[in-house]
């Protein structure tokens, strides 16, 4: 954002407008597609926008790193937006306090289960060790995951990709999955989304309701801190 003088600010403005327009277009498409519930998850705005932008980049001969520096302003808003999660957390705090261990137990289960399952798949299917180490951080938020992956012999940039795909899977399929297995409780949905699919799952929880968001935020914070503290002790 501060480097605007160094890069072509016109291209920056153009890519920002393109990205925001595509995002809102994709959001509209997603809402319109609600009657087609069986294919709606695939039309998630993140999937549609990402694919369109990758296509446009290829057409415009713009590399990913160039695109990222042009759209720095959007990434810069991620920090303040994450801080804003304190608001739903505060509004729902009395319910969270009443839940105490009833919310901490599922978060801990998710924190162990999710990396353990992923690691088992990679181990059984005989993949390289650095891949196995990287997958352990998949359920925690990107900045934490990258640091933790580096500390245990994984690949930080690859960790970011695993984390984001995990987030997209949770955000797109989560709500349909909950409906399928009969999890209607907003607080339970939020806990699962935040603990397993970190910030992207929490972004999805926001569209479900305030209570869902509060539990997702709590799960995101607790699992993120615990996982990034425990992994380096176990494997560092």
């Amino acid at each position, binding site marked *: 954002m501060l480097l605007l003088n160094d890069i072509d600010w016109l291209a920056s403005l153009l890519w920002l407008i393109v990205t925001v327009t595509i995002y809102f277009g994709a959001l509209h498409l997603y809402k319109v597609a609600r009657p087609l519930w069986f294919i709606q998850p695939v039309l998630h705005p993140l999937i549609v926008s990402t694919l369109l932008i990758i296509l446009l980049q290829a057409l415009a001969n713009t590399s990913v790193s160039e695109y990222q520096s042009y759209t720095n302003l959007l990434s810069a808003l991620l920090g303040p937006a994450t801080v804003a999660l304190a608001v739903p957390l505060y509004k729902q705090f009395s319910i969270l306090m009443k839940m105490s261990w009833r919310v901490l137990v599922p978060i801990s289960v998710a924190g162990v289960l999710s990396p353990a399952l992923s690691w088992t798949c990679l181990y059984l299917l005989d993949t390289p060790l650095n891949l196995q180490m990287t997958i352990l951080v998949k359920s925690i938020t990107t900045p934490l995951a990258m640091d933790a992956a580096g500390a245990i012999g994984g690949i930080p940039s690859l960790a970011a990709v695993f984390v984001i795909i995990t*987030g997209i899977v949770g955000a797109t399929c989560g709500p349909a999955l909950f409906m399928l297995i009969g999890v*209607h409780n907003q607080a339970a949905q939020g806990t699962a989304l935040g603990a397993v699919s970190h910030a992207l799952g929490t972004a999805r929880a926001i569209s479900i309701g305030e209570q869902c968001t509060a539990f997702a935020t709590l799960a995101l914070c607790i699992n993120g801190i615990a996982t990034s503290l425990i992994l380096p002790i176990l494997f560092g």
Partner: protein
Amino acid sequence: MIKLNQFLTGLFFLSVLFFAAKHWLLQLDINIPPALLGIAVLFFSLVLMKSVPKVISNAASSLLAHMSLFFIPAIVAIVNFTDLIVAFPVALFFSIVVSTLISLAITGWLSQQLMHRFDITNVSSDKQPKPPSKGN
């Protein structure tokens, strides 16, 4: 116009919180994500103030409603790893997609069992199950 002003003021406060947290953690060489410290500081400030100032709640709700948008530049970097994804498609599919779905299902189910027995009237005060209203 008043709304835009309020949004920008709120955004300013949230940004100051985030970038101050980032700066401090860097100075003190503490390895925790700045956003988590920001959440903690804002949360305890709200507890002290006992209510959410209008500028903060306005900015927070608009930012949170479109949080997915801010992830797009990071997600696009997936194209850098296509080689790897092509090399281990089955292993990655199971370890990322399938294991995420199983973990979500088990965590969601377990949470509902524990919370349901606790006090369903309190927990489900928001009309549920409510269909998702936004696409992020």
